[in-house]
């Protein structure tokens, strides 16, 4: 008997909804079967807490006296360049933006301890941030220079807006060369010294809804410790990658563009990360509720780590040179055991995504829903599906001649 989101929300308002985490549903389905679980359980909560580079926030800082037009000028937040191409006092800071002259970054591999992500974390934590801006000045916006402390509580708007978050699966990175390399998946020791991956596996939102049946544009989510929404497919959304018979992609596939009010988020769930030798990024907590509408949806949420497979990729040569191919497949149970086998060699694994924190998010979202504070939304539009033909393509470089 299929349920609707309206019915589930009714139960939530009455405090009668049965809500479990994506870990708990595994046991329920194992012991009681999909049919009974689908009838009993109303919502499955998922979670993830990992680095998500395509992130940022926009702010409206309020007009100065006399007025200034930052658009077309230059602006820096704690020496990190902010994009000033929007109107008068709208600014956007990207998570991976870096100060122009930070001596800690100048010598390989570089420390990369402060950038856009850390500015966002500082703002969410309520700290003052230094705004330094210059403008070309117009008759109506005559001011040419602005130096001031700003704080999130004084801003008109502070909105987290992330073009690509919540990747559905990701590679396992290894290093086949004889030198240490520094990547967005961490430091990789030579000769298959370690294998780094980045996923919450069986807790991960899109791995629990692999065909995007319920998660779509307009889905209300836990974002950075507050409430946010899925607003679009993320950049590089690639639903057509190869999938296992259970429908779960075996390589990086879909992803989400999300947004939410930064003022109600918490620094515990928006952490600036310093990736040695690579750069900075923002580690974001996201939790997505999945309404158990029918058996199909329920079956998908009961996915286990051992049912989710991914590819081992060499990041010393193949990845940077764009050479397709994989050194083999592994599943998340193997990865989480601490050791996998690549080319006959036993390799220690490291995760960049925190499973304990992902579980905490799934549990927090479960509490919010059970307390009646969080209602589910019906998606207003679907994400491009596997059969849609929507695909992520590489750049076609075309020579610019006179």
């Amino acid at each position, binding site marked *: 008997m299929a349920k609707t989101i309206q019915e589930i929300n009714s139960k939530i308002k009455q405090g009668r909804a049965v809500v479990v985490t994506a870990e708990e549903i595994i046991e329920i389905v194992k012991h009681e079967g999909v049919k009974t679980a689908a009838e009993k359980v109303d919502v499955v909560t998922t979670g993830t*807490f*990992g*680095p998500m580079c395509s992130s940022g926030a926009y702010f409206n800082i309020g007009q100065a006296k006399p007025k200034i037009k930052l658009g077309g000028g230059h602006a820096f937040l704690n020496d990190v360049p902010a994009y000033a191409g929007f109107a008068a006092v709208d600014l956007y800071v990207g998570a991976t933006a870096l100060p122009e002259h930070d001596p800690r970054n100048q010598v390989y591999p570089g*420390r990369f*301890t402060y950038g856009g992500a850390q500015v966002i974390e500082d703002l969410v934590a309520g700290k003052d941030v230094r705004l330094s801006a210059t403008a070309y000045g117009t008759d109506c916006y005559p001011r040419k220079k602005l130096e001031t402390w700003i704080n999130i509580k004084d801003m008109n708007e502070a909105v987290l807006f992330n073009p690509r978050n919540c990747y559905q699966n990701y590679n396992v990175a290894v290093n086949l060369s004889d030198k240490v390399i520094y990547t967005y998946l*961490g*430091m990789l*020791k030579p000769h298959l*010294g*370690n*294998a*780094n991956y980045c996923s919450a596996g069986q807790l991960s939102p899109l791995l629990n809804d692999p065909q995007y049946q319920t998660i779509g544009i307009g889905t209300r989510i836990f974002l950075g410790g507050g409430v946010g929404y899925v607003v679009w497919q993320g950049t590089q959304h690639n639903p057509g990658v190869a999938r296992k018979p259970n429908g779960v992609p075996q390589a990086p596939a879909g992803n989400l563009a999300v947004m939410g009010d930064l003022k109600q988020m918490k620094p515990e769930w928006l*952490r600036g*990360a*310093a*990736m*040695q030798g690579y750069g900075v*990024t923002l*580690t974001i907590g996201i939790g997505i509720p999945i309404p158990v509408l029918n058996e199909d949806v329920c079956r998908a949420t009961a996915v286990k780590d051992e049912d989710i497979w991914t590819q081992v990729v060499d990041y010393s040569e193949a990845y940077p040179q764009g050479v397709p191919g994989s050194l083999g497949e592994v599943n998340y149970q193997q990865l989480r055991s*601490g050791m996998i086998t690549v080319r006959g060699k036993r*390799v*220690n*694994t*490291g*995760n*960049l*995504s*925190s*499973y*304990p*924190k992902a*579980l905490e998010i799934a549990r927090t979202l479960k509490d919010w829903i059970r307390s009646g504070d969080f209602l589910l939304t019906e998606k207003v539009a679907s994400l491009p599906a596997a059969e849609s033909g929507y695909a992520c393509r590489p750049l076609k470089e075309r020579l610019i001649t006179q």
Partner: protein
Amino acid sequence: MISKKIVLHFPQHLVDQPIVHRLGKDFQLSFNILKAYITPREEGVLVLEVDGEPRNYDKGLEYLAKSGVRVQPLAQDVVLRKEKCIHCGVCIPICPTGALRVTAVTGEVGLDKEKCIACELCVNVCPYRAMEIAF
């Protein structure tokens, strides 16, 4: 037989004295140098793993103190800051001695100070700067 990791601070006037040589020879202690450097103030810092009989070890410490060398156990210098750690586990395969590992029940990352040799690889690898080593 005991094995201890200690951090020795040599003031400037002792840097050219064969103190560690005496420590080994006169007190029958064997040692492994884990780290050695001269600070900007031209003081020497040595991280040693010292093995020997407990009585000889105590006498050796007394000798160091009398010579003017400041000694401190390594264990108190290595800290995993719980408020910064997100328990991702990216440090675990980097640690050469297995001092960093996942706690079975909670899945959280823990530090076994006895196994730590203060190589400091984890310090820069941790994206949240949760590892602190100071001596």
